[in-house]
């Protein structure tokens, strides 16, 4: 009878230890997760998505960064103006 009681108490301690280890693990994981989100800017709230424009757009933008455009005299009343912002 005393033997059963000892085993039961040991099982209780084992259960408590398992719960404590589980809770500690969750706590450490949670803290690391929050830390990673605030420390690494790449851990954005939204899903990371690549630039939506086609790859040809990116190539063109990079290639032409010091190339002039094509202009001519205006022919109509302009719908838009260029200005500093």
């Amino acid at each position, binding site marked *: 009878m005393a033997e059963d009681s000892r085993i039961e108490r040991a099982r209780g301690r084992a259960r408590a230890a398992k719960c404590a280890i589980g809770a500690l693990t969750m706590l450490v994981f949670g803290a690391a997760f929050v830390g990673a989100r605030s420390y690494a800017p*790449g851990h954005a709230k939204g899903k990371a998505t690549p630039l939506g424009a086609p790859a040809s757009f990116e190539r063109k933008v990079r290639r*032409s*960064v010091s190339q002039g455009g094509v202009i001519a005299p205006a022919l109509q009343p302009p719908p838009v103006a260029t200005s500093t912002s």
Partner: protein
Amino acid sequence: MNAAAVHRFRAMGCDVVLAGADPTRAAALLERYEEAFSLFRAGSELSRLNRAHAHVLAVTPFFARALDVALSVAARTEGLVDPTLSGRWSEVVSSGQVVFRPPGLALDLNGVVKALAVDEATARLDGDGFVSVGGDLAVRGPVDVALPGGGAIRVVEGGLATSGTASRGPHLVDPAHGLPADSPWEQVTASGATCLAADVAAKVGFLLGERGPDWLDRRGIPGRFMTLRGEIVENGAWSRATREALTCT
């Protein structure tokens, strides 16, 4: 294309004017840029990167590509258009989705992000049209554009941008000194193959002062410079482009 419906709204802290595109879609695109790169939003990816104390940081592909463009622009302009605003752009290294930079060295990608957003929005136009954000614009198909100080120009291809001190005071920083640039120009307008090219050319033209018109000319970039007294100076490429077009008509 001037007869197409023109939509106006506010985004990225600027007036947006566009034609040939669904304004809701364009607004969503611009919001995406602002969400990632605004220095006025504490939660933007750029603000969080600037607050981080680490040397090595993970960023999203979207952010990494814009930073790559900013560093490429800094290299091509010999640091005149510098994402660190302090002449330290070469200390920033971007590799894939990893950024290396000394802690405390803040980045400001405004020099390229607005123009990039304009170029991407223009690339998504359904047909002929234009996108203008704060006066920096890109076109698909010819569009007539009013110029600072009066007059207008037809942008046949590419983009047009204006930089200077007219609306926000001396905010363009000379990276060599880390102080607002002391330029003889109030505003510089440049035409580029893209809005980004035009914006970079306008900034460089402004920051180089008296050497600005020649710098643009050597690269075949049309530039129009307005002095602090309101006089207009056109570089050779700008004058030739308008003169040649006049003789053709």
